[in-house]
């Protein structure tokens, strides 16, 4: 029953040198493993979309007159809240920094319905698991007189656009 399937070492190495057979075996193995790795990587490249179909990150929200002083207007489809105090205007994100739920307006600022994070009027965390305050986005006045918000650019909380 005892069948020795091992090749003798003489076949594998000739005088300490690697034999041609073993060398070819190594090359075949490395080639197959490399190809498998490459195809795995290209699968990831394939499923990572190059173009996304979401909303533009930069958009206009209307004229300054649409937001009279004291306004706290939640623009839910855009994911922002426009705040105006006198001549100062800002856009605060309403996407919870915890896990991405949409926060709602509360008496003291914002509150998240998913995991109970709470924020004050300026988006600072006052309770719950949120790790960061709500970001403020850059607001500019476009040449045609409309307010333009760029969600790609975060600015320091408390920096307003003066109109």
């Amino acid at each position, binding site marked *: 029953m005892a069948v020795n399937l091992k090749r003798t070492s003489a076949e594998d190495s000739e005088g300490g040198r690697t034999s041609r057979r073993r060398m070819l075996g190594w090359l075949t193995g490395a080639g197959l493993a490399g190809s498998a790795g490459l195809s795995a990587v290209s699968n990831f490249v394939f499923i990572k*979309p190059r173009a*996304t179909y979401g909303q533009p990150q930069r958009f206009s929200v209307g004229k300054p007159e649409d937001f009279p002083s004291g306004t706290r207007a939640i623009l*839910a489809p855009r994911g922002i809240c426009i705040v105006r105090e006198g001549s100062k205007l800002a856009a605060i994100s309403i996407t919870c920094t915890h*896990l*991405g*739920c949409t926060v*709602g307006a509360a008496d003291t600022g914002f509150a*998240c319905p998913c995991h109970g994070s709470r924020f004050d009027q300026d988006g600072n965390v006052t309770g719950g*698991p949120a*790790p960061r305050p709500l970001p403020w986005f850059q607001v500019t006045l476009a040449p045609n007189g409309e307010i333009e918000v760029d969600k790609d650019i975060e600015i320091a909380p408390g920096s307003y656009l003066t109109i």
Partner: protein
Amino acid sequence: MSLSTPPKASFLASLKAFPSTIWKSIFRNPLPSNDLERSATSFTNFFLHIHPVKVHKNSLRPLYTFGLGLISFFLFVILIVTGILLMFYYVPATSQAYDRMLDLRGSVAFGTLLRNMHRWGAHGMVAIVFLHLCRVFLTGSYKKPREFNWVVGVILFLLTLFMSFTGYLLPWDQLAFWAITVGTAIAGYAPVVGKDIQFLLMGGTSVGQEALLRFYVLHVAVLPAVLTLMIAIHFWRIRKDGGLSRPEDADPVISLEAMPTVKASVLEPKKTYGLQGLVRGPLTKVGEIPDNTVFSWPNLFLAELFTFVVTLSAILVVSLLFNAPLEEPVNALHPPNPAKAPWYFLGLQEMVSYSAFWGGIGVPTIFVLLLLGAPYLDRGPGGVGKWFSRDRLLANTIFITFVVANIIFVIIGTFFRGANWAFVTPW
């Protein structure tokens, strides 16, 4: 030219034998009536050939396994069948998915029943797979030589959860949308690759059409294929690892000392002895050792059939009594308050409400690594095959602590959390 020509059968006789000829061409063996034919069932039937010819009596003890592994598998089969049927009417498009859910309710024959069976079957599978995992742990069945099959089992448990998670989005209702928004955001907290995983899962920066299509493909093609492969490996290894675990004393020990033999000093050196000259008493022990195995036909097969009928009946009864929930269609602007995940993820959600990283990534990863590593860390041979063995007090205590902690978190998340995830009392 054949030497003997068979007697020519009359046409009528052939006609009369026609049905049985076909029957016998499909089933080569008659229903077994003796042990030889009983053992042939496992060899000659495609659907039975996965089974051993004989099975240990311990494996058939209902109170040892509770049939949990089998129930998991049968639930998987029910989910495959109902899932394929539901696919005939489902469209993975944000504009249509919810309407198709309403169609299933209103205009598809048995649509409600099939959706109920699929939903409750999925809940049942998560629960039963987890209980199966508990059974295997608490009986010490992950120990040598079953270490790797335990690892396969843990992977199957994770795949089951991922199946459930991907299926959750498909109805495209409020519950689905916000559970997946939160779930993918948790993935985003994973170190280094988190944001990339989140982006790959959603196919964009938010849950939308791309995410729905991706979850659909994962749910109906990728994950079932992987799950089927892993189940095949799991079953194959049960056989190769020697069947289900059992206590050491379940098998008789053949002691060599007990065999009466002849002392070497009385033997004559020049003489050739046959085996019978060296061993006194009956030559062979066959028939003397108590045999603790029974034929799979009918013992194991009847037990399996019984388990299947009970499983299917339970799912049918639950599906006839309770309708699967369907909330309002997705409103990406207003999360329901409170927004809750399915019950088996509520422990996770409760932990996430303390810390997104530790609750969603840290603690679950530690738990899974401990589970995967259990057979390689806990290598003591004692306590295999017995529920709550004294030998395994430490391992079982640690395991039960984790399980009870998770159950407490699930209960808090289910009953004690109200609007804005504030603590409320249910009474």
